[in-house]
């Protein structure tokens, strides 16, 4: 028998090939074809006005010519916008975190009964699904232009993130401490305060600092649709074709975001 295998060495390839990602060839080529077809179809479906695009580069040159050098002449406006963004971010973080604690408790599987759990999860999904800009438009229509709409928007945005992460943390807590509290006859609220809160507190503080940073960043965006802060200043500058001021604002936004990211990263590193 061994002679038979020796006589047919051709059966084994003498060069190595990387095994494909998807073993089944039909599935593999089918998937590649499907994805390619979809991408080609999607690209052809796009209502692209190539003439407009080709004109675009001349426009781009004009915009960049107008934007350089960035103008800091109206830096008073810039600073006011930023202070407003900062206030919006602080208030939204406080409001969002306060609101997300009860929602997180509702959405923690191990602490809440089923109907309340689903309600909590639904609230989180809704808060997370809508981009802050969409939420901002609705609030701007409901409560008028200005920072109030921005604060409300970012509260919703904060709830979507903080409540979700906090609920996951609550689901991971050490259950022994809860049992210990219950076994000595503690009430529901005392159980939460003495056995659950101490376990989630570090996470909560870390999340709050992260969310402050995140809110500051988002407040630059929601301002574009009229919710106050530096975004409004930017949108106004852009709308008036005041490109050099717009570039100055963008540069400062980028600098502030990098700074706040570094600061919040440092603080979180020291807390955790």
């Amino acid at each position, binding site marked *: 028998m061994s002679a038979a295998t020796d006589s047919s060495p051709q059966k084994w390839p003498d060069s190595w090939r*990387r095994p494909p*990602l998807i073993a089944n060839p039909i599935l593999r080529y089918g998937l590649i074809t499907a994805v390619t077809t*979809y*991408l080609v179809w*999607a*690209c052809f*479906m*796009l*209502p*692209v*006005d190539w003439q*407009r*695009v080709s*004109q*675009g*580069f001349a*426009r*781009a040159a004009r*915009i960049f010519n107008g934007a350089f050098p960035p103008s800091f002449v109206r830096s008073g406006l810039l600073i006011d916008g930023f*202070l*407003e963004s*900062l*206030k*919006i971010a*602080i*208030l939204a973080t*406080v409001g969002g975190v306060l609101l997300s604690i009860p929602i997180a408790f509702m959405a923690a599987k191990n602490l809440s009964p089923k109907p309340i759990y689903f309600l909590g999860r639904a609230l989180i*999904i*809704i808060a997370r*699904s*809508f*981009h802050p*800009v*969409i939420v901002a*438009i*609705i609030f701007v*229509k*409901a*409560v*008028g232009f*200005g*920072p*109030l709409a921005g*604060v*409300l928007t970012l509260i919703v945005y904060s709830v979507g993130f903080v409540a979700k992460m906090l609920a996951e943390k609550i689901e991971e807590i050490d259950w022994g401490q809860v049992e210990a509290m219950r076994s000595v006859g503690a009430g529901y609220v005392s159980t939460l305060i003495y056995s659950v809160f101490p376990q989630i507190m570090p996470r909560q503080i870390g999340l709050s600092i992260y969310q402050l940073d995140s809110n500051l*960043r988002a407040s*630059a*965006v929601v301002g*574009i*649709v009229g919710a*106050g802060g530096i975004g409004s200043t*930017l*949108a106004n500058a*852009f709308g008036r074709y005041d490109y050099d001021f717009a570039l100055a604002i*963008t540069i400062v*936004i*980028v600098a502030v*975001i*990098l700074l706040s990211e570094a600061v919040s990263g440092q603080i979180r590193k020291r807390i955790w």
Partner: protein
Amino acid sequence: MVSMDTTPEVWARYTPRERLQRFAVFLVTMVAIVWALTSIDVIWPWVFDAPQQMVDLFGRMVPPDVSNLPSILWILLETVNIATIATAVAVFVSLPVAYIAAQNTTPNAATLWLGRFILVSSRSVNTIIWALLFVAIFGPGIVAGIVAIMFRSIGFIGKLLGEAIEEIDRRPVEALEATGASRFKVIVYAIVPQVMPTFWAVAILRWDINLRESTVLGLVGAGGIGIILQGAIDTFNWPEAATVLLSILSLVVLGEVVSAWLRKRII
């Protein structure tokens, strides 16, 4: 025995120094909140009025008006296309950027800083701000939206991929280099297989995020479902706005389900 008198009589959770620090942090936080509350430019009666206004607004939204549903769904598909095309292009563009932004694969210090500069500038400018710029360049429409999302995604994908490259196991690379493999082959056979799981995970995650972001591009004129939403809101057509919002909600939830499924299948 000597140190007996320094031990405190009463048990305390924190040392006096810690207590002072905690108090300082608390004070700073309070001052910041009070400063923000007292100096923010809001009209307080409007704040107290806000819940009533919201209830009124949502009252106008029911029942949602579905008469325009076919065209909403069509534009929703266009929105998905924007997110998908932009993610697909961004994934390819970010590969070389990630390669030069990773400390262990970048050819020299200049390319490292170039890579980092691309990542930071792409990541710090929000999609909407990119969209504002590209609408001014390309005119209102989908192209501006795709390019805006692409620009923002390059930084995100490139950064995470660059970190994955920095964390690879050096030994396969050394083994291949020892056999005299070319630079290209080292990348394909030693680096790519190691970062492949991260690559797919990041691409799927970004597609999910892009789906969300593409729903708002229309508000600055860059295509997608946002245009219909803006139109409905501007004409106070709240029942239609409610339909659009519900369809966005279902799109995003569906996108999350699809990406969770893909993640489980591929990785």
